[in-house]
């Protein structure tokens, strides 16, 4: 176990996570309750799912800034399709996930076909997506949703809240996809050396397209979950979520240059941000100081991680 932990590239951020947990635990007795742990997991589920999806994009050497907007569009779509007395839940979910994949494919196709930097492509679709969400919803929150959709947000199965179940399934799926499949290996290969992957016969364009499709799919899933959680489709949901998700991925040790990264790392990054958010609320730090402390802790954690990685060598 100890060995396994030392070998893992995510050791540093894991230590940082343990440290902040201990810190908050010592500051307030409310932190280490089973209930609060469940609250944290519940809260991070949306960001985690976004971050899992975008991890593939970043490992492949790209970036996706449109996450937050795709989440909003998907949230609006699922809300529209889940108006009380309209379609069955599964139809709404299916169509929304398909819509998410289609939007991701739009990003991917632009990146692959036009060679425009992904930063600009997804910045463009981020703006477009926000407009589309507003158009679809006419700028208003969409409520009166099916009870069954609400269940996804606040129900539980065998005592485990549904969002946490989604989180776990997404984690396992992405972890498998990245580490156990040829697709995952190719994603790393493309991020590591695109030309080398190409001459080895890897279908680079196809993989790159899929990477954005995955990101879109998970953005849609996150949109569904958020809509279910707040029981409303919000056109302005997810503003700035892309930065949180990308931050979690990078804190989790995925390189901005592509080629390496892990889903476990991303999960730890997400938890790290989630725990700080939760802990600062619990100990009731003033809203202004929250931001200063949040930014400071994140930088500190990544610095410590760097030192730790060096020490290991």
């Amino acid at each position, binding site marked *: 176990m100890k060995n396994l932990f030392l070998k893992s590239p995510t050791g540093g951020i894991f230590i940082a996570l343990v440290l902040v947990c201990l810190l908050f635990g010592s500051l*307030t007795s*409310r932190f280490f*309750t089973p*209930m*609060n742990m469940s*609250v944290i997991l*519940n*809260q991070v589920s*949306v960001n985690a799912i976004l971050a899992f999806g975008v991890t593939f994009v970043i490992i492949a050497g790209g970036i996706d800034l449109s996450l937050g907007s795709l989440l909003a569009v998907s949230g609006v779509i699922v809300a529209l399709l889940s108006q009380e007395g309209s379609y069955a839940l599964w139809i709404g979910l299916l169509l929304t996930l398909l819509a998410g994949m289609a939007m991701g494919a739009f990003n991917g196709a632009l990146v692959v076909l036009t060679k425009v930097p992904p930063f600009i492509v997804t910045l463009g679709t981020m703006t477009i997506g926000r407009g589309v969400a*507003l158009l679809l919803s006419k*700028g*208003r*929150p969409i*409520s*009166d949703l099916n009870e069954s959709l609400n269940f996804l947000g*606040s129900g539980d199965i065998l005592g485990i809240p549904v969002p946490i179940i989604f989180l776990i399934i997404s984690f396992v799926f992405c972890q498998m996809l990245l580490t156990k499949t040829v697709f995952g290996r190719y994603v790393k290969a493309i991020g590591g050396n695109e030309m080398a992957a190409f001459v080895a016969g890897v279908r680079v364009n196809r993989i790159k397209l899929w990477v954005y499709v995955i990101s879109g799919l998970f953005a849609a899933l996150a949109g569904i979950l*958020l809509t279910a*959680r*707040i*029981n*409303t489709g*919000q*056109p*302005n*949901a997810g*503003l700035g979520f892309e930065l949180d998700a990308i931050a979690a991925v990078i804190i989790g040790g995925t390189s901005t240059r592509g080629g390496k990264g892990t889903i476990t790392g991303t999960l730890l990054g997400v938890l790290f941000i989630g725990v700080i*958010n*939760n802990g600062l*609320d*619990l*100990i*009731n730090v003033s*809203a*202004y100081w*929250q931001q200063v402390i949040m930014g400071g802790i994140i930088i500190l954690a990544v610095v410590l991680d760097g030192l730790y990685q060096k020490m290991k060598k």
Partner: protein
Amino acid sequence: LVGSACSEKKKDHLVIGVSMLSMQNEFIQQVADALEKSAKTANVELIVVDAERSSLKQVEQVESFISQQVDAIILNPCEFEASSPAVEKAQKAGIPIVNVNSSTKSKPDAFVGSDDAESANMAMELIAKHLNGKGNVLMIQGYMGQAAQLDRERGAKAVFAKYPGLKLLASQTGEWDRAKSMSLMENWIQSFGDQIQAVFAQNDEMGLGALQALMDAKKKAQVYVVSVDGIQDARKSVEQGNLDATLIQNAEKQGSESLRMAVELAQKKKIKESNILIPFEIFQKK
């Protein structure tokens, strides 16, 4: 530079530029709808732009209106101070300007709206009455530093000063956002548990987020929740007996009144009252 302005072909109707705080906010959207509706009946052409909560953008939009030689401007200010240059610029260019919904430091030609501080004041009074002047309250703030947040905080604080028995357990920002304030409330439920007796949210979106968290935690019965704005969702929630109260700003009236003022000013008519205050209405289940 001046010559070109005169040669513009004569229009058979008035053109009024409108810069709105944020078209992503349902209440503002309602005001805009009311403006459009009144404009149609009055045969006025509206140019509606969205400042996306940025006062700089708002100033720029007013600059654009001035260069377009509109007949009047309706401004839904982003900020008390920072949107003031927009008002000054319009007046310097001789174009009448009407502020709708909130005010600016520089005095416009007319003002139609309600006082943000008053809404918070009324909401907190409801809470004080419900708790008989004694109890623990949480406040969810808007985006820190914005005019609406500051005014509503001021209005709420006045009530706390009036009832020494009311205790502000904590106040944090929910950034006007339903999801964010839901998370915030979840965390507060962890730290304050059964101490929480009432929640004041500075807008309905955040009120509804907090409400959702309380209902999920099966704690709504013990907690009294009030928010302001009176958006559709909030009224529905009140009717269903979930949200305890919201304060309605009359969007319809703010829209139609400000358009009427703008038209009258553009036609150089004398106006009697340049400061029209539209009171809030308490909306709660009877």
